[in-house]
């Protein structure tokens, strides 16, 4: 029952093999095809076709690899007396070539870097490139210490996962060159639990007093000093508001600027990468994803809610001017964050603060009978809300 289809399959296989063979070899393919009708037994015919197809395929492959021979009959073993090169041997040579190419792929630095980039997206799951990156950063830090290179020390300190080591390196870097004291803030954002932050803050505030980042760092230090491990406590958990924390957040909201110092960090990256031949892109990027402190998202929302509530209380008491001032402080700070945002999360925070503040400002203006201002604030609030929805379509 199944014998005829076998012979048909054999014929089809050979016909196809003849089509892909180089022109000069096709006559031989036709020769094998011609014999197929005389092969006894359908299974034997199929085996015959496989043998013929393998010859044609080998010729097609060689003609692809050596294009100059495409139009010629192919004698892949060079002469009559050379040993016949079997398909198995050709496959073995090809496999060996692939193995060699793979080894080269992993040995050459540009390829190792390419693999690092490819795996970066899976890092959270695999934790491979991160571990390798950390050991490379430690090696770089050792070299930087030997060379007494503050740039190399800052580069490593901003990226190492070990808080104590990071603190030690940045301190050494600033001792070597005090102009790098901004790196204290970068390390403080990455490792808010470092006790030395309390010593660093006055120095940072003296150099850059209007930067909201320093107030965020200060507020987080106060939060951590409140308990044994308050940073582990859920931020939505009801608790008393610490006046010192509130004061630090108020200072942050009143700050005219926000600078995460990542621009300065990036400025020294190129020189360090070149000097130390550092080629782990994931490790490089790991120092630049901590611009806006992660804890500041919750702190900002928590503080903004308290200001908006205070504004509502003033509104209830008929103090519309005082309420508007509260709302303006939130809107203004939202604008600063929005204008400096590097990530969607930062932008979302800026838009959220502005949306809430402008809705409240519209409400105050309406109560005061100022319909033009109310319409403008409502328009701004709706615009920011629309931007929020486009950032996170499924969000509320």
């Amino acid at each position, binding site marked *: 029952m199944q014998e005829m289809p076998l012979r048909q399959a054999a014929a089809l296989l050979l016909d196809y093999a003849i089509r892909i063979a180089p022109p000069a070899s096709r006559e031989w393919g*036709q020769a094998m095809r011609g014999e197929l009708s005389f092969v006894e037994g359908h299974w034997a015919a199929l085996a015959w076709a496989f043998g013929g197809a393998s010859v044609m395929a080998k010729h097609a492959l060689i003609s692809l690899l050596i294009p100059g021979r495409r139009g010629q009959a192919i004698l892949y073993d060079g002469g009559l007396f050379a040993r016949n090169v079997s398909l198995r041997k050709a496959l073995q040579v090809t496999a060996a070539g692939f193995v060699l190419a793979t080894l080269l792929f992993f040995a050459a630095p540009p390829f190792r870097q390419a693999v690092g980039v490819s795996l970066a997206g899976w890092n959270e799951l695999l934790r491979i490139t991160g571990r390798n990156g950390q050991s490379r950063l430690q090696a770089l830090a050792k070299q930087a210490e030997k060379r007494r290179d503050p740039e190399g020390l800052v580069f490593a300190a901003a990226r190492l996962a070990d808080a104590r080591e990071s603190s030690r390196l940045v301190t050494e870097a600033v001792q070597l060159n005090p102009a790098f004291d901004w790196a204290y803030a970068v390390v403080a954002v990455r490792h808010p639990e470092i006790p030395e932050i309390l010593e660093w803050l006055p120095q940072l505030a003296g150099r850059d007093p209007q930067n909201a980042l320093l107030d965020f760092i200060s507020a987080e230090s106060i939060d951590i000093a409140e308990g044994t491990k308050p940073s582990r406590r859920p931020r939505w958990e009801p608790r008393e508001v610490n006046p010192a924390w509130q004061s630090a957040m108020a200072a942050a909201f009143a700050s005219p600027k926000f600078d995460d110092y990542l621009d300065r960090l990036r400025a020294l990256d190129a020189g360090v990468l070149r000097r130390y031949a550092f080629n782990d892109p994931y490790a490089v990027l790991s120092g630049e994803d901590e611009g806006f402190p992660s804890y500041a998202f919750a702190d900002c929302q928590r503080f903004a809610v308290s200001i908006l509530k205070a504004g509502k209380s003033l509104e209830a008491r008929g103090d519309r001017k005082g309420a508007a001032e509260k709302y303006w402080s939130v809107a203004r700070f939202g604008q600063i964050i929005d204008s400096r945002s590097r990530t969607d999360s930062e932008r979302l925070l800026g838009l959220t603060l502005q949306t809430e503040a402008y809705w409240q400002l519209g409400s105050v203006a309406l109560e005061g009978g100022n319909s033009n201002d109310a319409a403008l604030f409502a328009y701004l609030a709706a615009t920011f809300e629309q931007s929020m929805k486009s950032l996170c379509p499924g969000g509320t």
Partner: protein
Amino acid sequence: MKTPRISPETLRVLESFLERPTGWHYGYELSRETKLKSGTLYPILMRLEKHKLLEARWVATQDGVPPRHTYRLTPDGLELARTQLEEARSRWMVQQPALSRG
């Protein structure tokens, strides 16, 4: 100069041709006589033909059946086949006592 050794598979093909030195042989017939598969036999035939040791021609068959390719050794091919087979037999004779001695 010493003549390089010919492959055992090629020797089997030449031996088969020498059974009817002037006759034409079909590929399938050669395959059965030499026990070589098509994937081994045809590259040998192609090389012999390339070196002008073999000539090939097409033979018409009955309607509906593709024409067949047939082969025979050229005078040069015959000479080479005889020389090589003779050398191979000599080598075999020389090796026999050594083999029998273990």
